[in-house]
């Protein structure tokens, strides 16, 4: 769908993107991660053709990105905004027409969306009369009204209360099921794990990590397990097939131990060691969360 190749973007005095390449697969949800100022928005602006890269290219559906692709892209910027004094219905239609829709088509689709999201009464209202959350909802509709093939969302959940965030999330997933490719940037790692098929992590203008979420997390497995057992406390020495990272007891007679396997052993060896001694309640592999990976990766680079 979208192939970003060796993008370099420099502003006077600093580099926003240096040699960034990524692939966004068609029909998937792609998360663009990175701390503030990493270059995410610069990259998004290049995909939206708001700015042009100094070098490198963006390929959209096999073609070099050009003005004709604008109508296939929907963009929700991080800084939300609409005309404050314009009626919402009129404004939505205007924005949709700028994306190439006819007036009647825009009106028809707008009706559909307003009914779907319970906004029928908003037509004649002005943006300044709405709450912040309502404005966001309206802006989301404006982003997807022209049924773009690629939807770019910059921090889509910021500013939504949990109920509306859930509604928007469902809408995003549904659009994705209908075939739209979603590219969004976020700091919220739990949404990344929940929604994204693939991610790219950008830090200080460099891409430092990308790939499928599952693969990335798997590659960060480091033979760490969490064990909960009941019974007498086991005194670990050097004879067991693992080393103990930490140990705690939340209630009398139950212990939680975090362990790391020694070379050449697996989780079965742990159980074999423990079962004769205690009752094992739980054995769980500790896979680092995206959050931990994110922090670890970012901290690696000074």
């Amino acid at each position: 769908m979208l192939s970003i190749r060796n993008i370099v973007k420099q502003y006077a005095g600093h580099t926003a993107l240096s040699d960034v390449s990524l692939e966004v697969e068609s029909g998937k949800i792609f998360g663009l991660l990175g701390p503030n100022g990493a270059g995410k928005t610069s990259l998004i602006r290049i995909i939206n053709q708001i700015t042009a890269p100094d070098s490198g290219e963006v390929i959209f559906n096999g073609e070099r990105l050009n003005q004709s692709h604008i109508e296939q892209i929907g963009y929700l910027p991080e800084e939300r905004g609409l005309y404050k004094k314009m009626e919402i219905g009129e404004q939505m239609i205007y924005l949709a027409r700028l994306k190439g829709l006819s007036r009647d088509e825009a009106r028809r689709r707008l009706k559909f969306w307003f009914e779907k999201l319970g906004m029928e009464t908003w037509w004649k209202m002005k943006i300044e009369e709405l709450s912040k959350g309502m404005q966001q909802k309206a802006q989301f509709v404006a982003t997807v009204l022209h049924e773009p093939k690629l939807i770019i969302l910059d921090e889509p959940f910021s500013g939504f209360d949990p109920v509306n965030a859930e509604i928007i999330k469902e809408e995003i997933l549904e659009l994705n099921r209908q075939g739209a490719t979603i590219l969004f940037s976020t700091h919220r790692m739990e949404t990344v794990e929940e929604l994204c098929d693939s991610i790219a992590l950008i830090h200080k203008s460099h891409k430092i990590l990308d790939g499928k979420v599952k693969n990335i997390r798997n590659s960060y497995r480091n033979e760490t397990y969490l064990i909960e057992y009941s019974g007498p406390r086991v005194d670990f020495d050097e004879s067991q097939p693992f080393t103990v990272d930490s140990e705690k007891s939340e209630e009398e007679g139950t212990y939680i131990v975090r362990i790391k396997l020694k070379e050449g052993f697996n989780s079965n060896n742990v159980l074999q060691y423990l079962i004769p001694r205690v009752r094992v309640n739980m054995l769980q592999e500790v896979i680092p969360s995206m959050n931990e990976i994110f922090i670890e990766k970012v901290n690696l680079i000074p």
Partner: protein
Amino acid sequence: MQKVLLIIQREYLTRVRKKSFIIMIFVVPGLILAMGGVITLVSKNSDQINTEQTVKVVDESGIFKGKFHDVPKIKFQTSTQSLKETKASTSADSLLTLYIPANYSAKPNSVQIFSKKKPPFKLTGEIEKQMNDIAVNTSLMEHHIDTAYMRTLKSNISLNAVEITDSGDKDANVGANVAVGIACAILIYMSLFIYGAQVMRGVIEEKTNRIIEVIISSVKPFQLMLGKIIGVGLVGLTQFAAWIILSVVSTKVLGQAFHAPQGSMMSFLAVLQTIPFGYILGCFIFYFLSGYLLYSALFAAVGSAVDSETETQQFMFPITLPLLFTYILSVSILFQAPDSPLAVWLSMIPFTAPVAMMVRIPFHVPGWQLAISMSLMVVGFLGTTYVAARIYRVGVLMYGKKASFKEIIKWFFYKE
């Protein structure tokens, strides 16, 4: 192109639908109507010698006896009665008493005129003139100066006077032309500011609303800027058209309302008819449009460089300085010396030409000067639009960065 039309449409409609726009359309012709009304009323009042006025002369000096001659609407009568009796007899509106004491020449202000109402200026002027003539003649005779010789002298003088009145007639015409020229210059000056500021405010609004990013993901910044400038410009033209139509209609209505073709109102209109309106209107529209395109592009660039209207000051000053400078020169000096080198140069430089040229237009500007000035205007607005567009495309995406001139120059050289 279709998107630019869409933007023009939005910019135009949102402004034209505003209450303030509709109010402005009616307020200005209303003011013109009121002004016309005042002129008519004033001319009606000063034209009071419609009815025959009879002046009874009480002449204690004896010098003026029988020497007053009647002019249309003013009759002189020599009163044989005393001042008191004459005053009592002139109680009607059209009767006046002129009292000349015996020693009038010793006390210049001792000549008095009594009437029930304040006498019209035309009447007192006529009396003063006749009295002065009589007194001068009397003095000449007393000093044994050859009145025949004097008469030849005098006829010379009156010949001069005819010339003066002749050219005075023409003067009035030029005066009206100058007035129209200056009015156009002032109108251009003000509308460049008003509509330029509207463009700037529109740009700032889009920037502070953050809608700019949504829009320029759909259209190029230049298209947005162009659409906004043209849209607001059309609002300006609509406003002018509405004003002209309403003014013409209201003047007609006014003429109807006062029914009788009032002397000075009609002569005022007659003078207006001598002005080549087509020519001046054509020049006005050209200089308004080209000047507007030139300045509004700069205003748009300023709007893109700031985050709020209060920050615009430092950029507005250098932009508006040439305009302000020309405006002050135009209404004070330029119209008196429309062919001076200063005036010619100012009417050539695109930044000052819209105002300076409008002042010169009534004085038959040579065709080649007009041609050069107009071509330079076109080059000028293309140039500023190019520069402004380069600043604009970067500026609208810069939030929270305090722009300086140095910064803006850097933006100009940014690649896409």
